[in-house]
């Protein structure tokens, strides 16, 4: 297992949530807002009043239902209360739909009812079975009505989470065919190509859009995607103009400002970046909050303040904040919520699994979460290593060994090599080859030391101590190791140390992991 760190690089890549959620968070909100002065409300009100007068003069079921339905449509229930009562008093002459409407108008269903308990999403499971169930639901929905582009986007999203990229692409193409110039569809398709590591395809798609240079959400996506592609963005000047003219509401400019801020930050212009991040936080999206939180260490002063906490679905920024503050239970819940939003994203799955392994007595949930992440990212060496680690901890040594081999085939980077050596050490110990296991752990420690990767060096030492303890060997020096861990103050390493301390020194502690700050 490897000690996690916050993201080294981060751009304002479009989110890919369920379409309904994207509407609620504002990402899919429409820009053309009504000026009340321009709207002919008189025409609507006049026709509603006409229906109300008709009902008053000659009440009957049809007029009552007509009035009740139109009043509900215009949000003017108060004009149809008599009509609603009339319907409810004659249930045999009307329909269930009209009766439901009447009850809503009179707010009868609210009487004597307890306020609904808020749905704690963090408790809902997310794993491969849940995703498969979602595939079945969406396929049935599309069988019934196949011309719904948002349902195609949602199905593509869950297929991506399962790693079925051809099917996902097919549904994205259908969505693009049904709504070729729609912002949410374009941004989603771009996100898909970015997930597959093909930013050029994402940009190609964007440049075909007629409003690519005028819609701030698309300009933001272009700048961030071009940065991923390591090429100069085309719409920087246009983006600055959009920010300067401020003809759009602040929410619609938030990600654009954050993208431009990130560009400035990478160019080394921290002062200009700071101004842009400040602009992005006037009415931020959660993606902006996460970006600004990521950029915070490079800034001179605090940018987020209280505002970040109010933003809906602010799971990513919150999860990291809780993690670095040592609030591990809350952090795991936030990573799980982020994973539910983006089940194809390996980062929240990786972190949720890491924390779950350290907080739960058994590694089964960590295994499920890592398998889910591997579905969308099957060649990720670090995920393969972590899965091997959890499997080995659960005693499933053969499968753990296969995952180690697969990870080694991916040409992993140095920090993953450190983790892989340690995992191979664990496997050797659990297979009864303690000498070889000891050596592999020591190799891992040496490589980490060479790479100045202090967190993984300590982590390898901690797990080596645990394996020695399991064999009944003396674990002297553990106190010294703990002191080094506390001096480093890296949250993941501290949590691992705490767990190993409980396993190897139960008499000293007598407590279970609480997830509270250490």
């Amino acid at each position: 297992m490897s000690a996690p760190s916050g993201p080294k690089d981060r751009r304002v890549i479009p989110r890919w949530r369920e379409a309904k959620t994207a509407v609620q968070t504002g990402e899919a909100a429409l820009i053309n807002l009504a000026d009340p002065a321009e709207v002919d409300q008189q025409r609507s009100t006049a026709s509603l009043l006409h229906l109300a007068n008709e009902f008053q003069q000659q009440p009957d079921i049809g007029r009552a239902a007509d009035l009740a339905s139109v009043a509900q449509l215009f949000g003017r229930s108060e004009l149809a209360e008599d009509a609603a009562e009339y319907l409810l008093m004659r249930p045999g002459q009307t329909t269930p739909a009209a009766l439901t409407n009447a009850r809503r108008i009179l707010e009868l269903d609210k009487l004597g009812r307890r306020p609904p308990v808020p749905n704690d999403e963090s408790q809902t499971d997310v794993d491969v079975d849940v995703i498969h169930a979602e595939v079945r639901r969406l396929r049935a929905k599309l069988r019934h009505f196949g011309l719904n582009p948002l349902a195609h986007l949602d199905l593509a999203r869950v297929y991506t989470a399962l790693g079925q990229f051809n099917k996902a692409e097919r549904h994205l193409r259908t969505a693009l065919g049904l709504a070729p110039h729609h912002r949410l569809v374009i941004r989603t398709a771009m996100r898909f190509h970015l997930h597959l590591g093909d930013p050029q395809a994402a940009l190609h798609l964007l440049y075909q859009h007629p409003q690519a240079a005028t819609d701030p959400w698309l300009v933001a996506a272009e700048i961030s995607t071009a940065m991923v592609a390591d090429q100069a963005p085309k719409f920087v000047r246009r983006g600055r103009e959009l920010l300067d003219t401020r003809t759009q509401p602040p929410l619609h400019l938030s990600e654009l400002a954050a993208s431009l801020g990130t560009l400035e930050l990478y160019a080394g212009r921290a002062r200009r970046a700071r101004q842009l991040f400040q602009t992005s936080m006037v009415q931020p999206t959660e993606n902006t909050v996460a970006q600004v939180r990521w950029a915070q260490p490079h800034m001179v002063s605090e940018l987020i303040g209280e505002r970040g906490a109010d933003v809906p679905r602010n799971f990513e920024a919150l999860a990291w904040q809780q993690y670095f503050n040592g609030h591990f239970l809350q952090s795991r819940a936030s990573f799980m919520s982020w994973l539910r939003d983006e089940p194809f994203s390996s980062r929240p799955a990786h972190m949720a699994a890491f924390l779950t392994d350290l907080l739960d007595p058994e590694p089964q949930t960590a295994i499920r979460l890592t398998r889910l992440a591997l579905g969308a990212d099957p060649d990720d060496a670090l995920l393969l290593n972590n899965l091997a680690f959890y499997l080995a901890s659960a005693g499933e040594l053969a499968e753990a060994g296969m995952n180690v081999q697969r990870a080694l085939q991916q040409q992993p980077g140095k920090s993953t090599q450190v983790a892989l050596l340690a995992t191979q050490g664990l496997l050797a110990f659990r297979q009864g080859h303690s000498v070889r296991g000891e050596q592999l752990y020591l190799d891992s420690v040496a490589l980490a030391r060479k790479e100045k990767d202090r967190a993984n060096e300590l982590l390898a030492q901690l797990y080596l101590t645990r394996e020695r303890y399991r064999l009944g060997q003396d674990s002297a020096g553990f106190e010294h190791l703990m002191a080094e861990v506390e001096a480093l103050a890296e949250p993941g390493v501290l949590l691992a140390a705490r767990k190993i301390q409980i396993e190897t020194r139960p008499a000293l502690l007598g407590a279970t992991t609480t997830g509270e700050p250490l």
Partner: protein
Amino acid sequence: MHPDDEQAPVPGTHPAHFLLGLTLEDGWQVISRDGAEGGFSVGYLVQHPDGRLAFLKAVDLSSAFQELNMMVALQDVAERHNFEVALLETCRHMSRVVSAVNHGQVRVQGAPVPVPYIILERADADVRAHLASHAYDAAWILRCLHHITVGVRQLHSARFAHNDLKPANVLVFSGLGTKVGDLGKAVDEVGRSPFTEENFPGDYQYAPPEVLYLEHQNDLWLHRLRCDLFQLGGLTTFLFTQRHFNDFLYDALEPSLRPAPLNGLVMGNFSGSLPYLLEAFDEALGQISSSLSACLPTALVAPVLRSIQELCFPDPVRRGQARNASGRPMVSLEGYVSLYNRLAVEAELELKRQQRPSHR
């Protein structure tokens, strides 16, 4: 809240309000007030010496006199009246459109100006008055829909679009069935209608999404026909469920995406709204399907739902039945005339089977 609290009716002073007791040309006698007053008209029940009853619609100019630009308002009222008279003349032969019996003008004693009027066939009532007794009568509703569709098709064949199809304008005649009434907001293909300049002359609550999201229409005539299709689907929904299609649709739409004419926030941007409307449409169809299941024989639910799906499709380009080789939907109503007739016959036969006494 009482509607009077918002807008108290002002008693009319125009001569159109004083026709009671008068005898008109051809011997028609005004015997009572009939129906609610519209913005520019007053309704009366009239009787011919041969005993026939009819509905008289008298033009009330008082609202026009109160307009800032009275002359323009008067011209508008005159144009509307003349167009309606001409239209009713054209529609005289149409079996499913309420036709004019007579028209002319009458002078009230002491009044400086005469009152123009139209005498129309008199219905028993509009369809809403019959819903209490036919709430679960699929055969009656389907026959009613068949008649309405024939009426709208007859108008389309004469190159007119109704554009104000709503429950109040579906009139029921004893022994004759249903006819489409109130052509006051109809528009024609060549642009003689006083509403030619308006994108949509009808009420917003029955309007299709392209109207509510202010989508520019290149082909106005096609747009008019598609509005009629949407309103026909809306009537189908209302007659079966007693809730308007738009009520189902916008109830399923995220509130922040509602259009300004429905007290929402969004002004225009139809293409941006369309994917969300399609999602809401999908959900609305699910609700309508449940409601239909409660009042229709199982075998009829799917075809009726399909007709609503085609007629009320939020994207006007895909609205209507796919008929031609390219699969593009057409605005023709022929298919719906046949469909509703066939379904009405099936429902009638089913009803007859149920009413037949058992021989065992």
